């Protein structure tokens, strides 16, 4: 048997994965090869050292740290979901408030009958309507941009604060239990 084959067998023997026939072959080789004998002794010594090495114990704070990081992650997730929901709600509310203005614009430009009857005038009237809507939006943006932005920001802050209060209450409840 060649020394290269014996190397893997020695490692397998340390792991208890050799059968009796293979062990006998290995023993025979070791009895006649001083180089492999020396390697076998050093592998056994290494095995002894590693087997005697204990587990490194986790610091006591590890569990607390993991749970704190999980809680923080949950808080952020809830704050994002809550804030997004409130912001979307605010936008929906703003659109509902603006709806009468758009309906009024439609009436004012008298485009509805033209749209129904069709014809070349429709395109001209449609373009006129779009122009009017664009101008109206500019006026609205000038007038309401600041309050709407403020409202959105206020909603977001409110959402974060409510989430914070909710998480605080849950935390106290857990602590009380």
């Amino acid at each position, binding site marked *: 048997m060649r020394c290269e084959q014996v*190397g893997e067998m020695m490692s397998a023997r*340390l792991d208890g994965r050799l059968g009796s026939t293979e062990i006998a072959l290995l023993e025979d080789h070791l009895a006649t090869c001083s180089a492999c004998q020396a*390697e076998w002794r050093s592998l056994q010594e*290494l095995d002894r050292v590693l087997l*005697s090495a204990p587990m*490194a*114990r986790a610091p006591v704070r590890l569990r607390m740290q993991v*749970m704190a990081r999980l809680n923080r992650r949950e808080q952020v997730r809830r704050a994002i979901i809550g804030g997004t929901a409130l912001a979307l709600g605010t936008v929906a509310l703003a659109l509902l408030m603006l709806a009468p203005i758009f309906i009024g614009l439609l009436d004012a430009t008298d485009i509805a009958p033209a749209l129904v009857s069709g014809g070349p005038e429709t395109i001209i009237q449609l373009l006129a309507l779009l122009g009017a809507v664009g101008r109206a939006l500019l006026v609205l943006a000038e007038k309401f941009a600041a309050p709407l932005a403020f409202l959105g920001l206020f909603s977001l802050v409110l959402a974060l604060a409510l989430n914070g209060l909710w998480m605080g209450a849950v935390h106290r409840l857990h602590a009380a239990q």
Partner: protein
Amino acid sequence: MTNEAEWIQLAQEGDQVAFGRLVMAYQTPVYNLAYRMLGNAAEAEEAAQETFLRVYTHLRSYDRQRSFRSWLLSIASHYCIDRLRRRRITWLPLEDEIAVPTRLASDSPNPEAVVMRREQEERIQQLLAALSPTDRAAITLRYWYDCSYEEIAEALDLTVSAVKSRLHRARRALAQMM
């Protein structure tokens, strides 16, 4: 149903208290694996935290037919291997980079024994640090967790014959350094 199986099921349903119990049960095995792999107490603590956060995130995809311990150790091993590869430096650290954890399972009140134990610990970490990340993981799983070749292969995504040759190669390298 065993306690552990019950905690896993509850944790999969989002119960953080049950997950906390799993963390408590496995914090030392995960920390020890990270410490043996990374060779540094502070990094091991951070890696153990990150492993548990990943476990929580992927808990719903955990197959209860599989051993939870093997699944957990697989996540920890892969995280540590990635972390070692990201270091992009030689695997053999300087002496002062080895920080022995404050508590070892066999710490005794005898000061001389403690000193000897710590010296041996440093020696073991120096030896492990000379191995490639995957060989280091294979040796760690074999010696500290008594994992079979098949379990190591599953944890590290290797074949059984690759595990066998890696263990042999790693042992030969370590024995030469001793």
